[in-house]
C-alpha cells in the first residue's frame, strides 16, 4: 500500500476514472494534455537530437574538426576563398577578425572562433557536454539526496542531526562560491578519494562537484516529506506487521517520495546545466579540449564586439534549454502533484 495510491484525489467529472490506470499512467496522461510542457518536451528533444548528431554535422556536412585550431585555414564564402581569421588591412592593420556567420550549413554556419574553429560544430559538441553534465549531475544529486533525505527523515534522532548539520554546512556556502572553490582545487590535481579517481580534465569532475553542492537543496524537502510520512497510518501498519526498516523505506517510503524526485529531476537538470555553464564560463568547469556552452560563451567574450554571434548563439542554447527543462519540470510537477492539480482547477 502506498500513500500515492491511498490518497489519490477524486477524479473530476471531465476526466472519467479508468480503474486500470495507475497513478503514473494518469500523471503521464495529464502531462500529455499540458500543451506548454509538450512544446517544451519537443523543443528539448530537438536540441538533444541536434547535439547527439554533432559528429554527423561536423564530419559529413561541415567537414570540420571542431577541436583542432585552424587559425591559418581558409574557407569558401560566396565562391571566394577567404582566410578564416582575417588580418585587418585597413589603417594600421591592427587586429584579426574571425570569419562571421555564413548561414551555410556546409561550413562556418555561425562563423569561426579565435582559433578558427567552426562555431556551429562546437556548439553541437558543447551541447552534448552541457546536457550530459546537467543530466548526470541531476541524477547523481537526486540519488544522493534521496538516500540521505530518506535516512534523515525516517530515522530521525542523531542520524537526522548529523545529516542535517551536513546539509547546513553545505547550505551555508553560496552555491557558486563553493562550486568555484571545489573546482579550482580539484582541477589542479583531480579527485583522488579512496577508490574514486577522477582526472583533472575529466567531465566527471564537474558532474560530481555540481551534484554535491545541490544535494541539500533536494534532500531537505525529501527529509521533510519522509518525516510527514512517518505519522501516516500505512507506515504504522507496516511497522506493526514487523517489516524491517530497510523494507519499509524501500517499499513504503521511497514510492511516496519518488514523484517528488521525478519533479526535481528536470528542474535540477536545468539548474545544474546553468551552473556548469557558469563554471565553464569562469574556466573552472569543462576543460579543453572538451567544450560546453559555457566554454563557448567564454570563447566568444573576447569577440563580443566583432563577432557577437558566438556568445549569443551559445547563450541562447543555454537559455532555451533551461526554459524548456523548467517548463517541462513544471508540467511534471503539475501532473504528479495532486495539490498542484487542484490549484490548477481553482
Amino acid at each position, binding site marked *: 500500500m502506498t500513500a500515492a495510491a491511498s490518497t489519490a484525489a477524486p477524479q473530476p467529472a471531465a476526466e472519467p476514472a479508468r480503474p486500470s490506470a495507475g497513478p503514473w499512467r494518469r500523471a503521464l496522461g495529464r502531462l500529455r494534455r499540458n500543451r506548454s510542457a509538450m512544446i517544451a518536451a519537443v523543443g528539448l528533444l530537438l536540441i538533444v537530437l541536434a547535439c547527439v548528431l554533432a559528429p554527423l554535422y561536423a564530419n559529413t556536412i561541415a567537414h570540420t574538426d571542431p577541436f583542432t*585550431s585552424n587559425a591559418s585555414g581558409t574557407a569558401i564564402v560566396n565562391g571566394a576563398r577567404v582566410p578564416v581569421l582575417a588580418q585587418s588591412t585597413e589603417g594600421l592593420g591592427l*587586429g584579426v577578425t574571425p570569419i562571421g556567420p555564413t548561414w551555410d550549413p556546409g561550413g562556418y554556419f555561425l562563423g569561426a572562433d579565435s582559433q578558427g574553429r567552426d562555431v556551429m560544430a562546437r556548439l553541437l559538441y558543447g551541447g552534448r557536454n552541457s546536457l550530459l553534465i546537467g543530466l548526470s549531475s541531476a541524477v547523481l544529486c537526486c540519488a544522493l539526496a534521496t538516500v540521505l533525505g530518506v535516512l534523515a527523515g525516517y530515522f530521525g534522532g542523531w542520524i537526522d542531526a548529523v545529516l542535517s548539520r551536513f546539509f547546513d554546512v553545505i547550505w551555508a556556502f553560496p552555491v557558486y562560491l563553493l562550486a568555484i572553490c571545489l573546482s579550482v582545487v580539484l582541477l589542479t590535481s583531480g579527485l583522488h578519494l579512496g577508490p574514486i579517481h577522477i582526472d583533472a580534465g575529466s567531465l566527471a569532475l564537474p558532474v560530481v562537484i555540481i551534484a554535491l553542492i545541490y544535494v541539500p537543496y533536494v534532500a531537505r524537502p525529501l527529509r521533510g516529506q519522509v518525516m510527514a510520512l512517518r505519522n501516516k497510518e500505512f507506515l504504522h501498519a507496516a511497522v506493526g506487521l514487523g517489516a524491517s526498516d530497510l523494507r519499509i523505506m524501500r517499499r513504503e517510503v521511497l514510492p511516496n517520495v519518488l514523484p517528488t524526485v521525478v519533479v526535481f529531476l528536470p528542474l535540477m537538470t536545468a539548474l545544474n546545466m546553468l551552473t556548469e555553464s557558469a563554471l565553464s564560463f569562469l574556466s573552472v568547469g569543462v576543460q579543453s579540449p572538451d567544450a560546453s556552452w559555457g566554454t563557448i560563451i567564454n570563447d566568444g567574450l573576447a569577440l563580443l564586439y566583432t563577432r557577437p554571434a558566438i556568445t549569443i548563439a551559445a547563450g541562447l542554447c543555454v537559455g532555451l534549454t533551461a526554459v524548456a527543462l523548467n517548463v517541462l519540470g513544471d508540467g511534471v510537477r503539475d501532473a504528479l502533484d495532486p495539490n498542484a492539480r487542484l490549484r490548477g482547477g481553482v
Partner: protein
Amino acid sequence: MKRITAITGAALLAVGVAACSGGGGATASGTDPAGQPAQTAAAGFQEQHKGGTLRLLAKAGDGTLDPHINYSNGNWQVFQALYDGLVSFRKVGGKASYDIVPDLAAEMPQVSADGKTYTFKLREGVAFATGDPVTVDDVVASFRRIFRVSGPTSGTFYSGIVGAAECVKKPAGCTLDKGVVADAAANTVTINLVAADSEFLQKLALPHAVVLPKGTPDKDQGTTPIPGTGPYKVESYNPNKLMKLVRNPHFKEWSRDAQPQGYPDEIDYSYGLTPEAAVTAVQNGQADWIFDPLPADRLTEIGTSYAQQAHVNPLAAFWYIPVNVNLAPFDKPEAREALQWAFDKNALVKMFGGANVAQPACTILPPAFPGHADFCDFPQQDLAKAKELVQKSGTAGQEVSVVVADDEVSKQIGEYVRSALTQIGYQAKLKVISTNIHFTYIQNTKNKVQLSVSQWYADYPAASNFINVLLSCASFREGSDASINISGFCDKDVDAKIAEAMKLDQSDTAASGKLWGELDRELMKQGPIVPLFNPKQIDFVSKNVGNYQFHAQFHALLDQMWVK
C-alpha cells in the same frame, strides 16, 4: 610571465658578472603609425604646451609606491617622472632611449681599470620634493635601503657590491660600509664591486636604485609616497581608485636627457575601468591613455577609425614555450626538435592580434636586441617532419600537459599548442591555472610541468638578460618557485660560452654580439625553449595628446605627453 608583471621574473635571475664599465650599446627601433622612425633625440621644452591634466586609465593599481620594492611595468613607468638614480636611461623615444646618461651624478662615473670601482660625482643643486638637497649621504642610505627592505633585486642585480652578501643575509644590519663609500668633501660616492660587472650601470638606471631621502623608513612604504627628485610628486594614492601626480615645486631641470620637465600640470591615473570601457573613454576624449593591453576585438576599430591616435612599437620581449628537458617526453632531443617544427607561428601571431601587433620569433634574442643574429632554422610549421621526429623519439602517444595562465591570450595560445601537439602524436591536455600563481607554478620542478606558455620582457638591454637568465645552470633551482630557468636546462659548455660572452661584452661588443648569436643558434638546436613571437606595444591615446614618445625600456614617457 604576464604583461603587467612582465619584469618580475628577473628578480630571480642569477646574473653573472664579467668585465668592467658601461652598458652595451643596445638598439631598438620604434615606429610611429606612419612608419616613420621614432623620435630619437630630446627636443627643447615647448612652453606653449605646458599645463592641463593628463588622464590615464588602468584596470587596477600596480602595487606599492615604494620604488625600491615595486617591480611592475605600470609603476616603473610612473616612477620615471618621480625619481632619479645616479644614472638613468636617456628619456627620449626611439633607439637612444637605451643610452645611459648621468642623472643625479654630474657626469658618467670614473671606472677603475679592473672594473670593480665606480666613482660618481654628485650633481649639486638637486632637491627632493621636500626641498631638502640631495647629498652623498642620501645616496649611501638609498643603497643600504635596497637591502634593508629586501628589495626584489637586492640579491641579484646589486649582489655584486662589496658587503651585499652579508646584507642579503641580514638586511636589518646592512651597512655596505665598504661597498658604497661617500666622500662629503669631494661630493663623491664610490661603489666597490667584488667583481667587474659589464651591466652594472644599466642596473643602476633601474628604479630599484633610485635615490631617496636618507630618513626614509626601512620598510615598504605601501601607499605612502616617498619624496623624489623628479618633476612630479604623488599628491594622493588609492590603489583602487586614483593616483594623483602634481608638479614638484622644487624641481629644476638639470639634464633634459636624464630628467626633462614634464608638460601636464597634473597627472591623474584612475583605476577600475575595464580595458573595454577604457578604450571607449579614450575614444570619447574622457581619458588620454590606457595602460592595459587593448582588447583584441577593438584593435581593428582602433587601427582604422583611430589610426592617428594609436602608436605601435616593438618590445624587447618574447612569448615562448619553456620545454622541460628533464621530463619525458622532452628529455629526448628529437622530441624537442619536433616542437620547433610543430607550431605555425603566424597562426599564433594572429591570435595575438595580427602581423602588425607581433612578429613570429625564430630566435631567443629579439630582433634589434644586442646579440641578435638574423637566422631562422625553423622557418615554418612542418607537421609531417614533427610527427616523424616524435615517432623517431619513441614518445608518440605519451601524455603532455601544457600549463597556461588564465588570461585570454595565454588561453588561446595554450589551446593552439595543445591542438598542434595532438596533431603530431601526443595526448595533449591544457591546464589553465590562475595568472596569480602561474609564473611560480611553472618554475617549480615539483609540479612536473612538461610544457608551459610564458613571456619574458627584458629588464635592461643585454643579451645575458635573456640567455643567461633563462638558460644558465645558475638559474635552475630544483624544487624552488624561483627557478627562472623553467626548462631546467643546464649545459656546462653553454654556461662556459655565456661567461665568455659576458666577459667580451665590455671589451669587444662586436665579438660578444657574435658569440651571443652563436649561442642563440646552438640553444635553438638543443630546443629548451620554443620562441613563439615578439609582441609589440600598442598605445592608444586621446586626440588631445601630443608629443607621444616611446621609451624602449620604460615605454610611453607619460610626463612628456602634452594635452594643451
